[in-house]
C-alpha cells in the first residue's frame, strides 16, 4: 500500500482515494451508500460474510464483495446495475426471512441497520414470497451475567465476534453450530471469571447492527418501559 492517490469511477462519479484501500469504505466516505452489515471501519480482514455490498467491477466475471476489494487506478465500479440490485434484494429478503420481525418491541427499533437497508432497497421487513424460517432457539439467551442475546434477531454478521477478538480480555465470543443453526455463543455465566470483564466493556453490544446483543441493564430498563407503555 502506498500513499498514492488514485482515481476510480463509481457509478460514473470520479473518486480519488488511497491506492489499496478497500472499496466499500471509500464509497461510504464519498456518500455513495452500499448496504452492508458485517463491515466495520478499520478491519484488516473484513469477513465479507453478509454479501450485501456486492458490486460489479469492469473486467470481473462475477459480482465482488466491495468490503474486501482493494481499489486500483482506473477501476470502474457499478453499485446499481439490475443484477446487483436483484442480488442485494435477495440477500436482504433471505436475512429477514429468518428474522422474528418484532420491530415494535425491539431495543434497536429506529436505530436498526436492517430498517435502514429496507428503506434503501425498498423492501419490506417481512418476506412475502419466501416462507418464514423459524430458527430453533429460544427468544433470549440469558446465561451471561451482563449480556443478553436474542438469536432470532441475530444476522450473524460477526461484528461482535470481531470486536471482542480485538480486545485483550479473557472472555471471547465466537460462532457456534453450523448452517441455519449458527449462533454467537455466549456461554459465559456468573461462574466464569472471564465474563466479569464484560461489565465495563460491552463493546460487542455497541457494534451490533440489529438488536441481537444488548447490555442486560439497558435491556431490562427498556423492557420495563415497553411493558409500562403496553399497560397504558
Amino acid at each position: 500500500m502506498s500513499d498514492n492517490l488514485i482515481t476510480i469511477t463509481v457509478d460514473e462519479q470520479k473518486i480519488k482515494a488511497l491506492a489499496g484501500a478497500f472499496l466499500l469504505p471509500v464509497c461510504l466516505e464519498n456518500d455513495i451508500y452500499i448496504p452492508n452489515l458485517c463491515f466495520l471501519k478499520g478491519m484488516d480482514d473484513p469477513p465479507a460474510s453478509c454479501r450485501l455490498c456486492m458490486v460489479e467491477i469492469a473486467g470481473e466475471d462475477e459480482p465482488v464483495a466491495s468490503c474486501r476489494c482493494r481499489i486500483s487506478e482506473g477501476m470502474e465500479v457499478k453499485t446499481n446495475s439490475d443484477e446487483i440490485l436483484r442480488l442485494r434484494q435477495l440477500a436482504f429478503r433471505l436475512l429477514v426471512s429468518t428474522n422474528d420481525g418484532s420491530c415494535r418491541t425491539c431495543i434497536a427499533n429506529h436505530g436498526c441497520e436492517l430498517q435502514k437497508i429496507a428503506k434503501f432497497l425498498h423492501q419490506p421487513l417481512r418476506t412475502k414470497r419466501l416462507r418464514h424460517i423459524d430458527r430453533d432457539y429460544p427468544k433470549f439467551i440469558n446465561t451471561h451475567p451482563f449480556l443478553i442475546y436474542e438469536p432470532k434477531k441475530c444476522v450473524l454478521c460477526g461484528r461482535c465476534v470481531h470486536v471482542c477478538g480485538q480486545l485483550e480480555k479473557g472472555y471471547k465470543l465466537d460462532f457456534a453450530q453450523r448452517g441455519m443453526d449458527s449462533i454467537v455463543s455466549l456461554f459465559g455465566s456468573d461462574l466464569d471469571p472471564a465474563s466479569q470483564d464484560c461489565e465495563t466493556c460491552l463493546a460487542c453490544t455497541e457494534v451490533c447492527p440489529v438488536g441481537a446483543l444488548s447490555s442486560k441493564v439497558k435491556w431490562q430498563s427498556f423492557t420495563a418501559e415497553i411493558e409500562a407503555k403496553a399497560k397504558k
Partner: protein
Amino acid sequence: MKSPNSPKEHLMVQAERAQGRVKELKESPIPVIYVGCATCGLAAGALETIAGFETVLKENGIEARIEKVGCLGHCYAEPLVIIQNPGFPPLLYQKIGAGEAGILVRSFLKDGSDPCYEYLIGSLEADENFPTLMDYPRYLYENRVVMEHCGLIDPEDIDSFLAVGGYSSLAQGLEKGGAWVLDEVMAANLRGRGGAGFPAGRKWKIARGIEKSSKLVICNGDEGDPGAYMDRTLLESNPHQVLEGLALAALAVGAERALLYIRAEYPLAVKIMERAIVEAQEKNLLGADIMGSDFSLEVSVFQGSGAFVCGEETALIESLAGNRGMPQPRPPYPAVAGLNGLPTVINNVKTLSTVPSIIRNGHQWFRSIGTEESPGTAIFSVVGEVEYPGLVEVPMGVTLEHLVVDICGGIKDGKELKAVQIGGPSGGCLPASLMDTIIDFDSLKKVGAMMGSGGLVVMNEDTCMVEVARYFTDFTQGESCGKCTFCRIGTRHLREILKSITVGEGRMEELADLEELSQAIIKGSLCSLGKTAPNPVLTTLRFFRDEYVAHIEEKRCPAKMCRPLIAFYIDLEPCARGCDACVACCPTDAIFTTSNRKKAIDQEKCVKCGECVYVCPPEYDAVRRVSPPEMIPDQGVEPLTEKNESE
C-alpha cells in the same frame, strides 16, 4: 547427516534389501495368504476371515503366512483374498468369510488339488489354466496409475513399497533439483484432484516464487463427501506413495514442513500414515538431509475435526490454526499467504499420489493418458444401482457410459438407468441421454456437473429426482459453515421448497424461486460450498422438470418414491389364497384378510414402509405401488367376517 553417496545410491541400498525381502515372500516355499484389510475390508469382516484361516490352518497342521494388504477397490467382492500357493499363480478370491477360508484351506492348500473356482475371480498373472483378471472388462479397461499397488502391497511395511520402486522418484528429484520437479509437473499439466482442477504446477510455482524463509505443503485428506473414500483408500493402502508425492511437492516449492490433514473419522488412515512417516524417517527417506542430500522435510499428521467444510482450503487453514473452520475470502490465496501467513500449498491426496509416477515416467508419458486439457486418470467411487460398485481408476476422456456400463457392469436387476449424480453432494444429476458425456474437468462442468472429488451415484428408474435434489441439498445446507447469507439461508430455502414438493405441497411458482435462489447462491456465496450447492437442484430442474411438475400439479411421484404421494395395495388376482407372508411384516397391522381369503391393505393404517413389497413371494408378486394414492383401483374388497366366512 550428509553422506558422500548420491540420493540414488543411498536408495539403492535400501531398495536392494527390500527387494530381497519381498522376493523371499514371493518365492515363499509355503503358501502366502494376502487379506485386504483397509477400512472397507475390515467392515466386510476381513478380521474374521483371518481368524478363520488361522484356525483351520492350525487344525490341519498346515504352515502358511498371512499378510495384510490394502484395498483393491472392488467393494462388491470384499473380503478379498489373494492366495499364493507354490505351483500356482497368485489367485484372487472374492467374498471370503471365515467359512470360505476353511474350505480354501482344506481343498486348495491341504489337498492342493481344487483351487475352488466358485470363489475365484482370476489369476493376477497370465496363466493358461486360470482366467486372468484381464479377461474381465473391469480390469481390462481400468488404467491404474495411482492405485497401481493398492491392495497388492503391505501398507505397514515400507519394504514392500521400496521393492516396487518406491521413493525412486524422490531420489531422482533430489538429484535433479526442485526446479526440475516443478518443470515436470507443470509440463504434465497435472490438475488438482480435490475438485477444482487447478493446475498443481501453477500453484507450486506461485509459492516457490515467494522468497520467504519458511513454506509449507499440506496434503488434504479431509474427504468429507458422503460415500467417497478414494482418499482414505490411498492413505490406507499406499501411504508411502502419498508421502513421496508430498516430499516432491515440498522439494518443488522449497518447503521444509509438510502436514497431512486427515479427518479424525479415519483412525486407520491416521495410524498407517503415522507409522509410514516413522518408517520413512528411519530410512532417511524423510526428515533431515533426505538420502544424504541437503533437503530436509519435517512431516506430521493433523487430525481434522471432520466437518465437510474443513476440506475447503482456507477453512482447513483456519482449523489448523486452532480457529473455527470457516472459509476466508480469497485473495490472498493460501499459496501466497496461508497458515500463519506463510506460503502454503494444499493438494489433494490423489494429486500428490500421482506425482511420483510423473517424475518416474516423465511428463510426456503422463500427457499420453487422458485428454489434452485433463491428462492422467480419474478415480471414482461408483455406488448405487450398479452391478460392480467400488473404486475405479480410468483415463480421463472416457464416457460416462463406458464407466457405468462397460466397467461397472451396468444397472443391477435388469432395471433402466435413469441418471448419474457425479461430483459429490454438489455435483450434478445427468440423465441417461447424456451418458455420452466425456469425463474430464471441463466437459462435466459444461453440462452442469463437476469432477468434484469423484463421487458417482448411479440411479435407476425407481429414484425420484426431486427427492435426490432434496437429499443433497439437505446435506450441503446442514454443512454450510453459516458464515454468508446466501449459503446459510438460501440453501435452507432451497431445501424447504424441495421438501414441500416431495410431500405434495409445492407450488408451480416456486420452481422459479428455486432457479432464482440457485443463481443468487452461486453468484453471491463466498466459498465453493455455496457456489456449487445448487448444482443438484439446477440439473434436476433442467433435465427432469416433468417430475417436478408431476409432483406439484398431479400430486404424483413418477418414480413412486415420495411416500406422501404413493400408496400400496394388493392386487387380488395374483395374491395367493391362504398365503399370509405379508401380514406379519407390517409394523402397523394394516394388512387384513379379505372375504375371499386373500389380503388387502387398510390405507388408514398403512405407513407406506414398503415392507410387504419385499416379503410377498416372487411367484405371486402381488403388492402394487401407485402414485398418486387415488390410483388404487376399486377391487370390491371386503374384510373376512364370520358372516361372509359362512357364506
